[in-house]
C-alpha cells in the first residue's frame, strides 16, 4: 500500500470511514455548528455520559479563531479537520484498533516509530478529563487517545475510548508534504490550498480585525441565557447547541483581544456551567423517557 501513490486527503477520510464502519461504528456526518474540537460534538460529549453503549466515527471541522495565520503558516490553521471516534465501553483492544487503522491508511508500524506518550487530557470548558496518550509516529503527534473519566463535571459510569486524528497532519505525513496548502486533496490535481487558502485569509481578517465585538458580546449573553432556559426545560441537545455557540463566541472575542487575562477564567467558568447543565439535562432524560 505504501509503495503505491500515497492517499489523497479525501481518500484518507474514506479509508478511515471504511475501517471504522467495519468495526461497527455509526459513520456520522459533521455537526452543524462551530466547534473548537471533535470532542465537543454532542455525538461525543453527551453520548459519553450514562450507561448506554455507543460507537461512532465522524469527521468534524474545527474552528480555532486565534490560530489563524492569514494562510501564511504551513502548519497552522484556524479551520481544520479532526477525525473522531468514540467507542463505549472501552474495547479491550483499543490500542490495537488504532494501530490497525494506521495500517489501513498506509502506516506500517514496523517501518515507522509508533509511540504512546503520556497525556493527561483535560478540557476545562466542558469539565472533562481523561487519561491516555499522544500517539506519535516518527516523532509527530498524529492522534490523541483518551479514556474518558469525566464529562460535564460528571464521572463517566461507562468509560469510553476516544480517538482523535489530526487529519491534515496525518495527510501531510502520509504524503510527505511540508506545507498544508500543498496537500493533494482529491488525487486529480486539486490541492488543499485550492479549497481553503482564500477562506483562511478571509477568516483571519475576520477573527483578528473585523468581527464586531459588541455584537459578539451580545450574542454570547443571548446564547448563555437561552442555554440556561433550555436546560431547565430539559431539552438537552438544543441547550448544548447554545453552549457550543457561546463557546465559539468566546473564542472569537478572545482572538479579537478584548478579553483580559482575569476575565478569561470567568468566561470559561460560564461556558462550563452551561455544559454541565446541558449534560445534567441529558442524563436526566436518559434515565426517564428514552430508556
Amino acid at each position, binding site marked *: 500500500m505504501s509503495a503505491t501513490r500515497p492517499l489523497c486527503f479525501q481518500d484518507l477520510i474514506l479509508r478511515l470511514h471504511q475501517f471504522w464502519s467495519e468495526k461497527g461504528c455509526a459513520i456520522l456526518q459533521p455537526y452543524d455548528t462551530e466547534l473548537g474540537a471533535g470532542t465537543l460534538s454532542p455525538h461525543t460529549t453527551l453520548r459519553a455520559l450514562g*450507561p448506554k453503549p455507543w460507537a461512532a466515527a465522524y469527521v468534524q471541522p474545527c474552528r480555532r479563531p486565534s490560530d489563524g495565520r492569514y494562510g501564511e*503558516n*504551513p*502548519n497552522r490553521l484556524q479551520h481544520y479537520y479532526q477525525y473522531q471516534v468514540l467507542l463505549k*465501553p*472501552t474495547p*479491550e483492544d*483499543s*490500542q490495537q484498533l488504532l494501530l490497525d487503522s494506521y495500517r489501513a491508511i498506509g502506516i506500517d*508500524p*514496523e*517501518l*515507522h*516509530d*509508533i*509511540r*504512546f*506518550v*503520556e497525556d*493527561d487530557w483535560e478540557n476545562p470548558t466542558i469539565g472533562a478529563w*481523561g*487519561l*491516555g*496518550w499522544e500517539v506519535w*509516529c*516518527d*516523532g*509527530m503527534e498524529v492522534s490523541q487517545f483518551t*479514556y474518558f*473519566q469525566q464529562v460535564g463535571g460528571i464521572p*463517566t*459510569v*461507562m*468509560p469510553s475510548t476516544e480517538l482523535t486524528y489530526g487529519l491534515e497532519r496525518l495527510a501531510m*505525513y502520509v504524503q*510527505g508534504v*511540508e506545507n498544508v496548502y500543498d496537500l493533494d486533496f482529491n488525487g486529480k490535481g486539486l490541492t488543499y490550498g485550492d479549497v481553503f487558502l482564500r477562506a483562511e485569509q478571509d477568516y483571519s481578517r475576520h477573527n483578528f480585525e473585523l468581527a464586531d465585538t459588541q455584537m459578539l458580546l451580545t450574542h454570547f449573553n443571548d446564547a448563555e441565557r437561552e442555554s440556561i432556559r433550555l436546560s431547565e426545560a430539559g431539552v438537552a441537545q438544543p441547550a448544548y447547541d447554545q453552549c457550543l455557540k457561546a463557546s465559539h463566541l468566546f473564542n472569537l472575542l478572545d482572538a479579537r483581544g478584548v478579553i483580559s487575562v482575569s476575565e478569561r477564567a470567568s468566561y470559561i467558568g460560564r461556558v462550563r456551567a452551561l455544559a454541565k447543565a446541558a449534560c445534567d439535562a441529558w442524563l436526566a432524560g436518559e434515565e426517564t423517557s428514552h430508556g
Partner: protein
Amino acid sequence: MAELFLELFSEEIPSGMQARAADDLGSLLTKALDGLNPRDLRTFFGARRIAAVLNIDAEIPARSVSERGPREGAPEKALEGFTRKHGVTPADLTLENGFWVLNKSLDPVSAESRVSEAVPDLLWKFPWPKSMRWGAGSNFTWVRPLRRITCLLDGHVVPFALARDGDDAHGLKASNLSEGHRFLAPGAFEVLSGQQWQDELETRSVIVDMDSRRDMVRTGVARLAEQHDITVVQDDGLVDEVCGLVEYPVPLLGQIDAAFMDLPAEVMQVSMRINQRYFALRNPDGSAAPYFAFIGNLPFKDGGKLTTAGNERVLRARFADARHFWDLDRKTKLADRVPALAAVTFHAKLGTQAERAERISKLAGTVAQAMGLDGAQIAQAERAGLLAKADLTTGMVGEFPELQGVMGGYYAAHAGENEAVSRAVAEHYLPRGQSDETAKAPVSVAVTLADRLDLLAGFFAIGELPSGSGDPYALRRAALGIIRTIRDNGLRLDLTALFAQAANGRTGGELAKLPDFMAERLRVQLRSEGERHDVLAAILTRGLDGDLVRLLARTSALSEMIQTEDGRNLLAAAKRAANILRIEDKKDGPHTGAPDPLLYTQDEERALAAGLDQAVPTIETALKEERFTDAMQAIAALRPTLDRFFEAVTVNAPEPKVRANRLKLLSLFRETTALIADFGQIEG
C-alpha cells in the same frame, strides 16, 4: 524457599511514574508477605510493565498467639463481644493476671495461600499518582488498563482473581503468561521463572532491565556521534525519560536542516528536548552540530531510513515555529519591552515585574558599588537589572519558559546593548541548580545577587517563608545562589547592609529572620561539602557576619586550629573551665569581674593571668586585621599554661575568697575564648 514472580502487564505507563511504581510494588510485597521472610528482592519496570522477583519461605509455620480480652469481672457484654469477635466460647478463655486471655494455635499458612490473599488486596490499593477506570463497569483502577497479571511460585501459577464484592475487575486472574514487544513479538508466552522471563523477553525484543536500556542508549548515541566526530550533550533526565518510552531502544541519528543552523544552540536544544525528546550534539569547538539523536522503539526493517526522514521532517516544522518567534521577537528592542512588564504580575503583594525590574536595577547598582566596580560598570549593572526580566514578554520565552535569561541575552545583544549588559541579562539566573556554574563576570555577579536579594527581602517582608515541605518561590535556592556566588568570587560584601537596602524601606514581616535563614543555608551547604558544621555553629553564635568570606575564613582557621594537638587540648581545657563554672555559678555565681592579683596564691594562677593579659590584645588585633590563624595561634599558645594551672591548682579552694578569685580567673579565660568562638558548640 520459593521464588515469587509477579508481573503487572498494562498499556503504556507514563515514563516518569514507572520507577516509583516498581519501588512501591517491591516494598508493598515485602510488607504484605512479612511472615514469609521476603528477601533477594529485584524489581523491574518499563513502558508496559512493572515486575518483582523475590524469594520467600514456603510457609508461615504453625504458631500460637494469645489475645488479651476484658478484665476479670468486666461487664458480661464486653466478654460476649470478645468471644464473638474471635468465634469462641467463654470456655475457651483462661484467666491470666486478672485478664481473660484467648490462646490460639494457628495452623501453618502456605506461601501460595498467603500470596493469593495478599496480592489482589495490594493491587486494589496500589498507590498510582493518578489512575483510571475502563471497561463496562468495574471499579478496579490502574494507571492505564491492566491487561495481564503473571504470578508464579517456583514456576507454578498462584491461583487468584481480582474480582471482589460483585465487581468482576475486568475478569483479571493470575496466569503464567506474559507478552513481548508489541510489534516484533506479538502474542503471549509462558513464564517459568524470573530469569527465564528476562531471557525470553530479550529474545522477544524487550529489554526489561532499566540499566541495560540506559546503557544501550548512552553507548549507542555515543557511537553514532563518534562517526561524525561530534559529542552528545549529556542529559541523564532525558536518557531516563526515553528509556521509559521504549521497550527496545534503538539510537538513530538525524540531520538538522542547514537553514535552521543559525538559531541559537539553546533554542534548538530546548525545542528538541521538550517537544521531541531528542538529544543535542556538539562540534569539537562546542558549537551546535547539525545532527540530533533520537531513540526508536525497534530495529527497523529498513535500518531506520523512513523513521529518520520522518523525524527530520517533524523537526523542520518545530524549528520553523522557533524561527517564527526568533524573527518576531527581534523586531522589538528588548528595552522597549520593559513597559509591558507592568502588565505581568510578579506576586499580588509584591507588585508587577516592571516594579521588580526597577528594584533589581537600583539594587544591582548598589551591589556593583559595594563590589568596588567602576562607574561604567555600575551603570551597566543598573541597565542589565532593568532589562533582566524583559524577555518574559517574548514569544520564545512564552513557548519555552526554561529559556528565560538566555533569550534576553540574545535579544539584548541584537538590540546593540553593551556586551557586559547582554551577558549579565543572560547570566542573571545563574546558578540554576546545584550543579550549575555561578556567574563570574562582575556585572553579571552584581545583577544575579540583586535579583536574589530582592526576591528574599520581598518574600520575607510579606511573611512568605519556606516551610518544611514547601518552598514555592525557591527561596532556599536563591539563598544558596547568593552564598555560592559570593564564595566562588571571593566577594567582600556586607550582606546585612545589602538586605537592608533590598528591603527598600519595608520593615517588619519576617525580615528579622533573614540572617538566621542565610546562616542555616550556609550550614547546610558546608555540611554537604563534608565540612564540620559544628565549627561554623560555634562561630555563628555571635550572629551572622554579613561578610561571608570573613566568616568562612574564620571558620576554617578555627577548624584547622582544633585539629592540632595544642588546639585539641585547649578545647578540652575550655570545656573543663566551662563545666566548672556552670556548676559553681549555680551555687553562688556568677563569678565575673576582674580577679584580684593579691589573692593569687600559686605561680600557676599568676602565669595564667599574665598569659591572658597578653593574649587578649593580640587576639583582638589579629581578629580586627583578619589574621585569623594568628588569633587562633595566640589562644592555642595558652595551652601549656592552662595545663599547668589545672594540674597544680585546686579551683574550689577551702578559703572562700581564694575560690571566688580563681573562678573569676576561669571566667576571664572563658571570655577570652569567646572572642574566637563558642567552644561549647564544638563536638569532641
